[in-house]
């Protein structure tokens, strides 16, 4: 037994030594990180300021508002569980708006009530039923995710309770005839064309490989991106499966096709090892992913290969508004604004503006949002008949020195 282990151990050591020795001259230079990739990297500089519309509606209003002491708006979304961070980002944004409103309007103290759905489409209906049964609640922020939004839209509709989602992007959510559902950002259908424009425009790609995973999100996004890219990506397509870690065949195809850019429609769990394996095999172009890939986890898991990565996202870089960022830290306990914090802030501001205008019930607030047509900090808010924004913006990001930074709007 001891002998078995000793033999195996010695052999393994010998094997490694022999093989690595065979390429000593080569491996010794492996230390210079970033030796690949940077040569052909397109220059899309970081943008550190975010222009705010001069007439952006602030939660404080004119300070003269009066309302009943019981006036309440609700936040419903994940506050615990694996995906809680997104919900917390939104809640803190909404809480900041309510705090600023209440500080400025002594005669109108609006309460923000929190409901935790855990982001679970199975649990959300019960929670939302509870929300709509509280008659003091006249408007809602949420729900953050597409799955739970799908499961609960009908409950809001039945109760006539208006709600704004700051982050759910599945296009089908506005195709259910719900009159209470409003989306405060662009859906997945606008991200694909924007990504295509980014790839062929700012990034100057003449040839793109589009790789999709097997999720609804990835398939839908790849389709809209491909439709917009047309011939640029016609010859280089691949599909992978959730959970896949070995991308040899995909990498070989991409290397042989020599594209300027790879667009990956999926999430970071597969995107990170894919990018890492591409760069390891000598891929020199850029790697572009959607909001499902835009996460610090991507950088952690792809290692320094992530330096070639760009992201598209309908999310505003709220951390770039210094005033907002500073005030936000007071609510979040020091944490900087995260993805969808500013959308949460804007969504709450719209509901508060309705309350300040003298609205006291659900039906009137719903009409207020339906006819709303003003600038917010993140974008202009005006909805079409289905609850989609009339005009939406997609924002570009890139990895720079191990961090995700903003590079400007892309569509």
């Amino acid at each position, binding site marked *: 037994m001891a002998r078995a282990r000793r033999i195996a*151990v010695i052999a393994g050591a010998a094997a490694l030594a022999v093989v690595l020795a065979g390429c000593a001259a080569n491996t010794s230079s492996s230390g210079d990180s970033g030796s690949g990739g940077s040569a052909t990297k397109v220059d899309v500089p970081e943008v550190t300021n975010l222009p705010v519309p001069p007439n952006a509606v602030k939660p404080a209003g004119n300070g003269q508002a009066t309302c009943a002491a019981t006036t309440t708006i609700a936040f419903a979304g994940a506050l615990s569980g694996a995906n809680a961070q997104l919900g917390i980002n939104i809640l803190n944004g909404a809480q900041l708006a309510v705090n600023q409103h209440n500080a400025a309007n002594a005669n109108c103290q609006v309460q923000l009530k929190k409901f935790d759905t855990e982001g679970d489409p199975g649990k959300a209906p019960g929670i939302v039923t509870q929300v709509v049964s509280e008659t003091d609640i006249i408007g809602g922020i949420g729900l953050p995710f597409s799955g739970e939004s799908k499961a609960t839209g009908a409950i809001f509709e039945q109760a006539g309770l208006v709600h704004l989602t700051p982050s759910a992007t599945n296009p089908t959510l506005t195709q259910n005839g719900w009159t209470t559902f409003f989306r405060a950002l662009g859906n997945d259908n606008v991200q694909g064309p924007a990504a295509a424009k980014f790839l062929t425009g700012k990034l100057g790609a003449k040839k793109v490989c589009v790789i999709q995973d097997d999720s609804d999100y990835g398939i839908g996004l790849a389709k809209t991106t491909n439709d917009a890219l047309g011939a640029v990506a016609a010859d280089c397509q691949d599909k992978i499966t959730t959970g896949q870690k070995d991308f040899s*065949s995909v990498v070989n195809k991409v290397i042989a096709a020599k594209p300027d850019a790879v667009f990956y429609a999926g999430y970071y769990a597969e995107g990170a090892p894919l990018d890492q394996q591409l760069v390891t095999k000598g891929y020199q172009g850029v790697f572009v992913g959607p909001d499902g890939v835009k996460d610090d986890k991507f950088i952690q898991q792809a290692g320094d290969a992530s330096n070639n990565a760009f992201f598209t996202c309908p999310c505003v870089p709220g951390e770039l508004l210094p005033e907002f960022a500073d005030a936000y830290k007071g609510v979040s306990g020091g944490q900087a604004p995260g993805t969808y914090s500013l959308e949460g802030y804007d969504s709450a501001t719209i509901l508060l503006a309705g309350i300040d205008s003298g609205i006291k019930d659900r039906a009137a607030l719903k009409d207020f949002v339906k006819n709303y047509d003003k600038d917010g900090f993140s974008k202009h808010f005006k909805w079409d008949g289905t609850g989609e924004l009339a005009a939406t913006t997609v924002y570009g990001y890139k990895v720079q020195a191990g961090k995700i930074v903003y590079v400007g709007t892309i569509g």
Partner: protein
Amino acid sequence: MPVISTIVLAQGPDWIKFDIAAFVSQFWNNTIDGLAYGAIYALVAMGYTMVYGVLQLINFAHSEVFIVGAYAVFFTLAALGFGPSAPGLSLPALVGDLVLAMLVAMLAAGLMAVLLERVAYRPLRRRNAPRLAFLITAIGASFAIQYALFAWRGANPEPAVIMFRPQPVFDIGGVIIDSQQITIFVAAIILMIIVDQFVNRTRLGRGLRAVAQDPDTATLMGVNKERVIVLTFLIGGILAGAAALFYVMKVPAGVQFNGGFILGIKAFAAAVLGGIGNIRGALLGGLLLGVIGNYGATLFGNAQWIDVVAFVVLVAILMVRPTGILGESLGRARV
């Protein structure tokens, strides 16, 4: 060019088509990558095949033995300062670190395998439990370890630990073989030859084969059956630990609570393909499964075909040779 060379099945559905030009042009690259990944399958498959050969037990928890090894690799390398970029180490220092990580992984995975045998399987054997009880215990142990790791480390994979940036070593007519592929393939083959020789030539190995052939007679002849069983699990665990190092070398962010699951199923399939219970069969099956998946992905145009093709080939081969390509030979006298 791609339009002409892509042959779409006449009147066939549009979701299935053959890209023969790509298959031909990427044949050698796919073969080399497939062999490197297949070598990892083969090392893991050894654990399945040896335990089956001796106990006729399919140790479904072996994939978790493997992932425990991968965690050991991660923690060792992270402690040695490896991180998101390849460290600028001299060659001897790099080899030293990798060997150390492999030893720790072998130790961790080996201990895990022995512990598994002691806690999960031995009590059942003592009580002469039916085979079904072993099977469900194996599946249960697999989930138990997986979710213990989940509770400990969470759902996200560990950050990448990059060992070295592969350098091209051979360039044969545009087909590049890099140092990573060579390291994995050669080291895995050497390890498997050693185990094969150990089983076939040493006294302990003879005992192992004796128990595989006929446990009762072997016991009467003075072979310590319990010791042989522990030895079998230990060797399987050690090889899984080595496989973990090579896996993390190839997939630096692959250390995740359920990261062994799919690989374990593939490795088990490799063992069956080559002939379960057969050490050389595990090697052959692993390498075959590695390359067939890549061929299928390129031939059918995308990587979602990897498992379809690999498992269709598995079924086809089992139809012709129900005991696998090389047959179940650990327990046969001819070894």
